[in-house]
């Protein structure tokens, strides 16, 4: 039991140290870098919002278009950043593996946590900046929104646990990542809601954990203006499966990993 708590303590120390290192480099020396995490979704939401306002009108299916775009784009940015930064993460951080208490899984966890913090700050920043102007409503069910966002983060984390070791096994992963994220946008719930789709297509859409969690986020934000379809167990089960596969892969890859 004491060995277990000792191990846990060491792991917490490592994750903290890695987080602090990452945050100081981003906050301290590349101020603009971290600012961009917040500014980019804002810029995107406003520009696409303006474009769509002219093309389709200021509202889409009864909710404000700028709020709708922003609520989809922040999670998408988080997902894209997490995925692309998980590739080759073992080799990039290889020199840290000289310290035995640092595990390869810590790299993935810390990377996704940092992006998640960035995404959360983007939410707050946009909610504040656009909320004052009346473009973003006060969340109807904040608990639901937070739960959806946390589950979204869990799914992204579990996928990264698979992507990171796979990218070490084959370079193809890194090459096809951007295009596959792009192709997956229609089934990510980023710019659509399940209720807009015909019932036959909706069943397929709801197999995607991204769609389920986006529905939760949107329901939390817009409340009863939208008609949400979701099953909490879908993202939980999907991420449990990915996480298990990912841990097995990480273990395998670690065994053959060449550390300079």
């Amino acid at each position: 039991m004491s060995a277990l708590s000792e191990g846990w303590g060491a792991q917490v120390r490592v994750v903290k140290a890695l987080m602090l290192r990452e945050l100081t480099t981003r906050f301290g020396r590349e101020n603009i870098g971290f600012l961009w995490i917040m500014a980019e979704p804002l810029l995107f939401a406003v520009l696409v919002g303006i474009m769509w306002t002219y093309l389709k009108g200021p509202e889409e299916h009864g909710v404000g278009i700028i709020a709708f775009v922003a609520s989809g784009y922040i999670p998408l940015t988080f997902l894209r950043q997490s995925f692309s930064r998980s590739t080759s993460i073992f080799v990039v951080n290889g020199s840290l593996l000289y310290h035995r208490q640092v595990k390869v899984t810590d790299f993935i966890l810390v990377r996704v946590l940092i992006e998640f913090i960035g995404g959360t700050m983007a939410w707050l920043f946009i909610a504040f900046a656009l909320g004052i102007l009346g473009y973003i409503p006060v969340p109807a069910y904040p608990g639901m929104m937070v739960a959806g966002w946390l589950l979204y983060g869990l799914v992204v984390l579990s996928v990264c646990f698979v992507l990171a070791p796979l990218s070490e096994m084959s370079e193809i992963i890194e090459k096809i990542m951007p295009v596959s994220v792009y192709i997956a946008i229609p089934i990510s719930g980023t710019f659509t809601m399940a209720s807009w789709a015909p019932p036959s297509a909706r069943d397929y859409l709801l197999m995607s954990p991204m769609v389920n969690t986006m529905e939760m986020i949107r329901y939390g934000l817009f409340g009863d203006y939208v008609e949400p379809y979701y099953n909490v167990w879908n993202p939980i089960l999907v991420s449990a499966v990915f996480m298990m596969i990912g841990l097995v892969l990480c273990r395998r890859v670690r065994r053959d990993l060449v550390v300079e």
Partner: protein
Amino acid sequence: MITCESLGKTYRAGHGSKRVLDNVNLSFKRGDRVGLLGRNGAGKTTLLKIIGGVIMPTSGRVVREMSCSWPLGFSGGFQGSLTGYDNARFIARIYDRDYKDLRGFVEEFTELGQQLRMPVKTYSSGMRARLAFGLSLAIEFDCYLIDEVIMVGDRNFQLKCHTEIFEKRHDRALFLATHGANYIREYCNLAVILRHGHAEVYDDIEEALAIYETL
């Protein structure tokens, strides 16, 4: 006590593979000073990295019953883009040491001064060696794994290492890969020769060095 039990390591190289360590068995305890000898490519660095837990063996295992430093060598252990101080701070955090104490010791031991504010990638190998030794000595391990790097230091650094490792910490274990026969003759009580993926352990240093000469 640190024990290597039938360690094997195979590197993948393109479509083939290279067996570097075949069946390495050895053990050493606190107070032992082990000199690791072998030709270039015999697997000295590989063995050090496996003992240090940096890379995993393909077969066999390492049992560590005392705390063991990371392999102190020309590369690894530091993040090149971070400064010496940042690296020290990071290492203090993951080894649960007080940063102020650690910094004090490192400043005094390394004598790097303002250079500690520069990214580690700008350091010469001698400067890296100073930083690596300073940090690992401040953490106080039971066993130090040293890969060649002790040789790159200047006279002043050699003297410091002599005081800090061989005098103040004479009760610790030392596992040292080097080609410096005199170094081994002066400090080691055990010699290990690596060849054909096997480790041969000698109590008699002169005998080991004589064999090493003929390799």
